[in-house]
């Protein structure tokens, strides 16, 4: 699998929260050669099942891998003199969108730009100010009447950005949060073709993570896995971001540790990475991880969960940047972890037979 080519297609596909149809179709195509079955649930999560080869007389066990396919975006909220007013879906940083290209998904996709004032007409005190959403408009070039025929309040708007390759295996584009994670799931699925594993594997591209972890919430309920790993992006080191708040680019997946993460899951992932000499790092998350792992952990009676973070710079902009090697390492780590899962691991997590201690 050419990870650069896969990520390019994933990145350039549309997939706003609740409107993931295009990217879902794209991922579905990638799943097919490697999965035993694929389904879409009622919120739109795309779930691939790869069955394990289970020794006779052993209990069926499963693991859920989750990465979200939705991206942050915008939505039409009104009209003003032939321009569009808009709001955001998920946290788009208003500092980064002035003068950007977008696609407005009206009756047909309309290219547009986020309007800005020429600096010449701004009073000096305005020039250094951040512009808020209320002051921003989108210009698609159409006259007012035609605009109103083609566009309605509530139509989604995606950032438009071509994927580019930088030097040394670095790439840049939109929606790497969390299509980089989805790409790592595909790397894992491919690697599992050549590995023995006894647990069933549910590979889930989740929806609406950016709108409150919704896909993971219902996906985990429907699948009811024994354990889960979420893959998301983490803050890659860059000037102006503190060391303790960031992870190293090209340093491998960050294996998260903290109350959202089952300690045995964390420990085992670290051991597997060490055993196979896979580059990895540690990320301490003292509370809510803000990722799908946060929702999955408390689904049903509780699901032991882990989180792998792919280092990424410039999060929630359309120039998110990752190192391809980190995606490959993340996928391989998951595949190797899955291949060593057995009933003794389930026992270690307390997933064995329910045992009541007499008092």
């Amino acid at each position, binding site marked *: 699998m050419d990870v650069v080519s896969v990520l390019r297609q994933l990145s350039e596909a549309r997939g706003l*929260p*609740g*409107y993931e149809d295009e990217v879902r179709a794209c991922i579905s195509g990638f799943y097919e050669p490697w999965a035993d079955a694929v389904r879409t*649930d*009622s*919120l739109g*999560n795309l779930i691939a099942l790869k069955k394990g080869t289970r020794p006779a007389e052993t209990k069926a066990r499963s693991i859920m891998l989750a990465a979200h396919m939705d991206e942050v975006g915008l*939505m*039409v*909220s*009104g*009209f003003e003199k032939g321009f569009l*007013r808009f*709001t955001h*879906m998920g946290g788009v940083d208003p500092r980064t969108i002035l003068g950007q290209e977008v696609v407005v998904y009206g009756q047909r996709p309309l290219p547009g730009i986020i309007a800005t004032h020429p600096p010449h007409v701004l009073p000096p005190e305005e020039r250094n100010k951040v512009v808020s959403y*209320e002051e921003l408009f989108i210009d698609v070039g159409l006259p007012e009447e035609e605009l109103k025929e083609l566009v*309605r*309040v*509530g139509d989604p708007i995606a950032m438009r950005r071509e994927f580019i390759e930088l030097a040394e295996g670095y790439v840049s584009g939109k929606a790497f949060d969390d299509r980089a994670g989805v790409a790592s799931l595909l790397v894992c699925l491919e690697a599992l073709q050549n590995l023995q594993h006894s647990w069933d594997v549910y590979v889930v591209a989740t929806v*609406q993570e950016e*709108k*409150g972890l*919704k896909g993971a*919430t*219902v*996906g985990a*309920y*429907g699948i009811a896995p024994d354990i889960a790993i979420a893959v998301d992006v983490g803050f890659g080191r860059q000037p102006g971001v503190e060391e303790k708040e960031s992870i190293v680019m090209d340093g491998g997946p960050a294996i998260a540790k903290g109350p959202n993460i089952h300690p045995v899951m964390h420990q085992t992932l670290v051991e597997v990475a060490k055993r196979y000499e896979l580059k990895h790092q540690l990320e301490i998350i003292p509370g809510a991880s803000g990722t799908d792992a946060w929702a999955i952990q408390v689904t049903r009676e509780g699901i032991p969960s882990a989180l792998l973070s792919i280092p990424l710079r410039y999060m929630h902009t359309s120039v998110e940047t990752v190192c391809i090697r980190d995606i490959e390492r993340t996928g391989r780590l998951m595949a190797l972890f899955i291949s060593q899962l057995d009933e003794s691991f389930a026992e270690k997590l307390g997933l064995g037979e329910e045992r009541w201690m007499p008092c």
Partner: protein
Amino acid sequence: MKELVKQLVETYGPAGQEGRVRALIEGIIRPYVDASRVDALGNLIALKRGSGGGKRLMIAAHMDEIGVVVTHIDKKGFARFGRVGGVQVQTMVGGRVLFGNGAVGVIGWEKWLQSRGVPAWEELFIDVGATSPDDSPVRVGDVGAFLRPFVDLGKRLVSKAMDDRIGCAVVIQALMEMKESPNDVYFVFTAQEELGTRGAVVSAFGVEPEVGIAVDVTHIGDTPEARPMAVSLGKGPAIKVMDAGMVVNPAVKQWMIDVAEKEGIPYQLEVLEFGGTDARSIQLSKAGVPAGCLSIPCRYVHSPSEMVDYEDVQGAVKLLRKLLESSPSFSS
């Protein structure tokens, strides 16, 4: 239908104290449904069976309203209070509250006539006409609702608790008017929406709908200098696209639009940049439910004088009825 609205809005029912509203609704809808029950959180769940071949629909409108709760009574009999739901501080001073036992209190402010600013919550108190804790008609923990009568302005209706008794009224009216339907429809009058859509969480879990629709109020952008929003009073019920709590399933949104257009019902599309409804909890129930929301545009939401347009209300009834009678054919 105005008489139904008046009855509903004037009934006492802050979040967690929905008993009287529930009894009122139960009495009205009994002849029109096949079965009804009350669940552990106090949701009223009524089933009207369909003729077959349709879906299991859940229609939710919340019975509860915002209010206040007594937290302390001082030596002179003044009560301090906390908020039940999203009460707005700038609507409080000089207002009256009614408690479940019939006691009435006036909301006072320590800095009355001393300050022109907005009060801080801890500077407010309720004067129930008592002189000491001993002769106070209220006790710590008693819950009060705004006391404000229903007013019919002709084209527009004003009252406390339009949020969401107007939704209850729309659902009841649609239930009474609806004709043959292929769908099994669960009419759920939910509890504790104002405390975080809690009634919808458990009722959706119990009902297991295939499609869910909440009926609730939404904000507008048509008053002087209002925060921009493309919803006005009098331009028809609103079909929600997104709010802070959810993105409406596009197929559900389209189903609602298609029915409105087929029936020639004026409607508006709603993008609300804050707030949420029961629909967000229905959507996340169990393995997920396609959910949407039919909104009634409302001015001054969460004040004691919430205003709706009567034509919008009637439009909402018609749209809901036509939705219930149709077959939602989208695949979930």
